[in-house]
């Protein structure tokens, strides 16, 4: 009798411990999430306020009057739609080129045997370690020589030739069995036919990973556009935002409306493709 009573006590203790633990976990999570999200909420709330209302403590989260005119003013002062189109153009072109050229090269490094293959691949791998800053000065000079400075092409080409893409595809293709390719060769498919009809359809996960990696890079790149773009009609969203900050750095409400305009579309895209995003980032961890 006594032992069972003790056992029940222990069990009750155990389950109340579990509840306490769960509460601690929720508190930790909610705290972290709040810290992450508060600047965004503050940004949205401030973007709808009058200039005089933004500062002051305690924070008034809901503006007294919604000043939608802030947005109207920002969009007439700064061509956000143009900056979006520019960024999109760079991101899409670089991504398409990156996926096509890297998958072709990755196929060779994984599946076609020729004598100097491994040495060539080693060159690719070796450069993956080197930070962009080491290459950026000669890259700029080469771009200047071929007349691509102050054009989107400089950024597209730099985005398109990233050894990481080749590495990613090669690793992925290694997992495709050789027998599959042998069978296709016996069936009379050319190497290009194998690549197009067998390899590519199988490599959707690798393609998705690379697309996300490349898009994120093109979208968030700041140093590249800062170096290459001088005409303001070519600006990307990051550079346009920087321009706005220096130009209107005392008009806080407008600044926040501009920040919302720069951030919200990415958030929408993120929500639409959330799982692919998270998976893609986890897979591309190899290259921060």
């Amino acid at each position, binding site marked *: 009798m006594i032992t069972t009573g003790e056992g029940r006590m222990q069990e009750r203790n155990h389950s109340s411990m579990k509840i306490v633990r769960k509460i601690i976990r929720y508190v930790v999570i909610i705290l*972290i999430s709040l810290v*992450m999200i508060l600047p965004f909420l503050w940004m949205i709330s401030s973007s709808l306020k009058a200039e005089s209302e933004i500062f*002051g403590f305690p924070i008034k989260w809901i503006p007294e009057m919604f000043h939608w005119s802030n947005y109207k003013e920002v969009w007439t002062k700064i061509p956000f739609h143009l900056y979006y189109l520019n960024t999109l153009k760079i991101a899409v072109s670089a991504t398409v080129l990156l996926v096509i050229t890297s998958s072709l090269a990755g196929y060779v490094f994984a599946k076609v045997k020729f004598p100097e293959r491994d040495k060539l691949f080693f060159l690719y791998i070796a450069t993956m370690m080197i930070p962009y*800053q080491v*290459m950026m*000065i000669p890259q700029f000079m080469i771009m200047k020589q071929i007349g691509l400075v102050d054009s989107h092409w400089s950024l597209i080409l730099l985005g398109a030739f990233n050894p990481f893409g080749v590495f990613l595809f090669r690793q992925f293709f290694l997992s495709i069995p050789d027998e599959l390719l042998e069978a296709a060769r016996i069936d009379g498919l050319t190497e*290009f036919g194998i690549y197009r009809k067998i390899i590519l359809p199988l490599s959707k996960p690798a393609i998705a990973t690379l697309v996300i990696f490349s898009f994120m890079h093109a979208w968030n790149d700041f140093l590249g556009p800062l170096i290459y773009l001088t005409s303001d009609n070519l600006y990307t969203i*990051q550079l346009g935002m920087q321009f706005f900050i220096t130009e209107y750095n005392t008009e806080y409400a407008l600044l926040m409306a501009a920040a919302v305009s*720069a951030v919200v579309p990415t958030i929408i895209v993120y929500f639409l493709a959330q799982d692919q995003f998270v998976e893609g980032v*986890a897979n591309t961890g190899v290259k921060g």
Partner: protein
Amino acid sequence: MGAPKKKKSNFTRKNRLVAYAFLLPNIIGFLVFIFIPVIASFLMSFTSWNGFGQIEFIGFENYVNLIHDPNFRISFINSILFLLISVPITLFLSMVAAVALNKGIRFVKVFRTAVFLPYVTATVAVAAVWQLVFNPTMGPINGFLSSIGIDNPPGWLTSPEWALFSVSIVYIWHSVGYYMVLYLAGLQSIPKNLYEAADIDGAGPISKFFNVTIPMMSPIIFFTTIIGVINSFKVFDFIFVLTDGGPGRSTHVLVYDIYNTAFKQFEYGYASAMAYVLFLLILIFTFLQYQGQKKWNN
């Protein structure tokens, strides 16, 4: 005897043809935009070239000058400080977030999104927000601090003592989500039966964390430390937008200096030497961590 050999070389020739046809588009880009620049900047680091006139080789002069350059020393120290502040805190917080969010929690997706959101948003825009949040006289942070009775709240981005720390806060806030995703992927690949075995042994959650989770995660922790160090050395956008290197030189870091030396002062040779020092630093840190991991595993 001769026939098979010939066949083999035909085979090789055919393979080679296919290989280079497939490689061509990528290898041209790779050579022009990556391989040649890497070599060129190495050679350039031994010249005093400024973009005009003759290229003059000056041996190790740039590297010697770097050692005696007080401004470079400041950037060097700032980069290391920035690393020491931001990397441990970022990795610790992302591990906490990942473990807390791993399983058995409602609204996982909502929380995960909240933590990950700063990482996917444009850095310049969020930097603009933080600049106002940190505003020393009117911003909400100092508003809060003075409301709880702190009379002399720090000047954050405008104070030479606090600026680097303030940039680190923004950087940590921005990066935690990224490392959390990597840790979550790692946590989910730990076999469940290891935890079940620990349960049978009567292990509590803390002992399970240190005896199962940490050892199983050690390759990922090693990997994220390396990536974290490399990324922290490369910080640029936040510095450029939040402080522009100031006040004074208090937030000058290596990449910021490389950019200024190359694209503002056009001292290409000197900037290339700086870039190679950065590369060397990254190599040294990676090597040290690699050694550390070896020791840990033994």
